């Protein structure tokens, strides 16, 4: 084959060659690939359970096929609207507020020059991420409960009257969002912080020489550089927009139905309906529904991003 003169080199190496050339990178990816293969792809055929009347002695694939019967449950409950609303609104609050706060903290941390302070601040922020939801719920209860709570005591000793938080549904969106922020900020900050650290420092130096102040550096250099990271994290998060954090909601609210109006999400509803019947097919149907909707939302969001700026799209 002769190359036409003046044309761009269109030589493409063979697949084997590409693999060989990137062998170290691929080797490093291997654990992650294995992880997703084992825990995400291999179980996928099992989603078939959502369409069966699962019999233990027959196994998933030999159980009788029942079509969409298992999906009926969510739709005839009459609660789907409320559940969707709560689940989606909480997730939007978590995603938007979470990212804004994490971004802010990462930038602030970056501006801190005292090394020991920076390290310890980061560690302390990270800690809540490791506290289990069960303990968090106990902490919250011991702060807020009416009879013996810490805050109730404080308010009373100052001569005030403590509202009954555990009987007031309107207070809970704020409490849950606050708890979620408290738990996740440290973790998310690290991601942004890493992105900032990876920035080309010559740009900063150039800006400094040109006389840009701290605010201008953040506004015109740090933030634009972080844009791809923000978009990627956003795209990752939005796929789970129909999935609630069961541990957090269930532990904080439990079976306190006075709060359900503002705190009931798909997961807690499914749990409450099926905790006595152990219907694996039906609960899988709900999970499948959430995943499929999430999948299309990711596709949609990605297409939207691609439309705006193809460089930032995931695929």
């Amino acid at each position: 084959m002769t190359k036409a003169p003046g044309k761009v080199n269109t030589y493409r190496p063979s697949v084997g060659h590409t693999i060989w050339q990137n062998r170290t990178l691929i080797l490093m990816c291997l654990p992650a690939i294995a992880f997703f293969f084992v825990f995400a792809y291999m179980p996928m055929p099992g989603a078939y359970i959502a369409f069966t009347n699962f019999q233990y002695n027959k196994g998933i694939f030999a159980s009788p096929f029942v079509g969409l019967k298992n999906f009926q449950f969510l739709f005839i409950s009459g609660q789907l609207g409320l559940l969707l609303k709560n689940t989606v609104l909480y997730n939007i609050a978590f995603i938007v507020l979470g990212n804004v706060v994490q971004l802010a903290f990462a930038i602030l941390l970056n501006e801190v020059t005292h090394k020991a302070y920076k390290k310890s601040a980061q560690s302390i922020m990270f800690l809540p991420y490791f506290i289990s939801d069960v303990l968090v719920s106990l902490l919250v209860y011991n702060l807020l409960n009416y009879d013996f709570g810490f805050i109730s005591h404080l308010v009373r000793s100052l001569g005030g009257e403590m509202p009954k938080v555990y009987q007031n549904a309107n207070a809970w969106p704020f409490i849950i969002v606050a708890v979620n922020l408290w738990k996740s900020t440290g973790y998310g900050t690290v991601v942004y912080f890493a992105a900032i650290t990876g920035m080309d420092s010559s740009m900063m130096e150039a800006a400094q020489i040109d006389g840009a102040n701290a605010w201008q550096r953040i506004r015109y250099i740090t933030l634009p550089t972080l844009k791809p990271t923000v978009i990627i994290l956003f795209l990752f998060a939005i796929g789970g927009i129909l999935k609630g954090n069961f541990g957090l909601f269930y532990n904080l609210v439990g079976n306190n139905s006075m709060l359900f109006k503002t705190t009931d999400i798909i997961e807690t509803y499914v749990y409450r309906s099926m905790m006595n019947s152990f219907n694996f097919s039906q609960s899988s149907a709900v999970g499948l529904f959430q995943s499929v909707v999430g999948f299309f939302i990711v596709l949609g969001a990605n297409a939207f991003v691609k439309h705006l700026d193809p460089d930032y799209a995931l695929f």
Partner: protein
Amino acid sequence: MKKLLAVLLAAMMLMSIVPAVAEIDTSEHVKIVYLVTGDKPTNRTDEVLAKINELLTEKINAELEFRWIEWTDWQTQYNLALATQSGDIDLIGTATDWLDAWPNSQKGAFLALSEDMLKTYAPKTWETVSEAHWNLCKYNGEIYLMPEDNYAQWTNHGFMYRGDWARAAGLENGVHSWADLAVYFQYVKDNMPDVIPWDANGNGSSYSPQMAGGWQTSHTGNIAIEGFPVSIFYGESKDNPYTLSRYYVEGDELVNFAKEMKRWADAGFWRADVLNYTGDVAGEMEEGKTAAHQHHTQTWTGERTTMERKQPGSDLGFFYFGEETGNLISLNITHGAMAVAAQSKHPERALMVYDLMRNDPEIYHLMQYGFEGEMYTVEDGKFSRPEGFEDSKDGVSFNFWWGRNDDLEYKNAQLDWDAIDALYAEYDKVKIDYPYGQYIYDNSTVGVFMDNLSNVYNTYMPRIVFGMNDDPEALVKEFRQALQDAGIEMVMSEIQSQLDAVYKK
């Protein structure tokens, strides 16, 4: 001629037993895994198990191994273990009222046990369980469960209260009604500032069926039907048991309950945030910080002794739900039962092991009490533990609640048998047999609606039970409307026709 025939018959009967036993091939040593609910013991269970395994190896060339379903999240873990079995479990402790034995039979978790199998491999059990009792263990004509039908116990719910405080409250004979209970709680509230009358841990919904059902049992003749994922299906009365009660859909009694509980909540009988409180009520009672504990008779028998030690003179009494109306149902024989796992690789040997666990005196006593002499002594058919004995350290825990046997059982000498026998005698005067033993709920037609009813119940009932509302009457009305919207009438008529199919032939 007649004599000859009799001899021949006897010989034939003997022949039919002897070869059956001789045929069993136990040349291969097998391990039988026993699935049981409970926390992995920290006491001498392993030592005792080693001894039992020696005996089992000698007798039938098998050994026993535990698979514990720890109490944390036990319902989910238990059902998951059954659903994902792959020959890794052989014997399964189960129950029709608290461990979903029937739904699990329907889902194919258990092996159907043929009469031949039982006769051959569990002959002692086969003999001692009556035909009527075997019939109560059948689903679609097949036996799935081996019932604990020779063990006297009571697990009817009620309230434990302190006799000393009840007398101080002017209740000379103790608490015997919901009205007495209110008087008792009010006395505690007024006179003991550091004691919460009933410091209920209302997080989780386990009190809903007990409290709502308790009031119902005490104020109507209704009888609870077991085996539903939501506790709103009751029979009308002992004279008319096979007609469903409409208690939850209409009538005043539920409203009265809601109003009274609202009054109790306002009076401060439990903490204001009861629905999110997770405490150890029994522990608090033992420390004198709460005046009552809601659980069942069997718990009370042990708790009475514990309380006497920790709060001397407390004279712990028990008010049982249904006491006012004499509405008391004997325990269903399948409150505890053993099943064989559907995927078990050695179902025959599993049955043989169970037969010995249940009927062999040496193995039974090891399992229930440990090493005689060292861990317990027997006198007058009652067993005592040595001085300083602590169950969590020195005891043995097989949690064998699936075939206890009164023929081999020793009474615990440390319990207060005068008080216990007095209560049991009272029970015996009013009790009736569980009327629905033959009925197994079939979930296939209305299951979807049942899940929604379950959600409605779990949403409203905790608020009714703990008076967390401004207007109890309106809340009950709302609850009933939600039940209607979720299809209660359709579900009830389906259950009624299922009941009719069994009992109105």
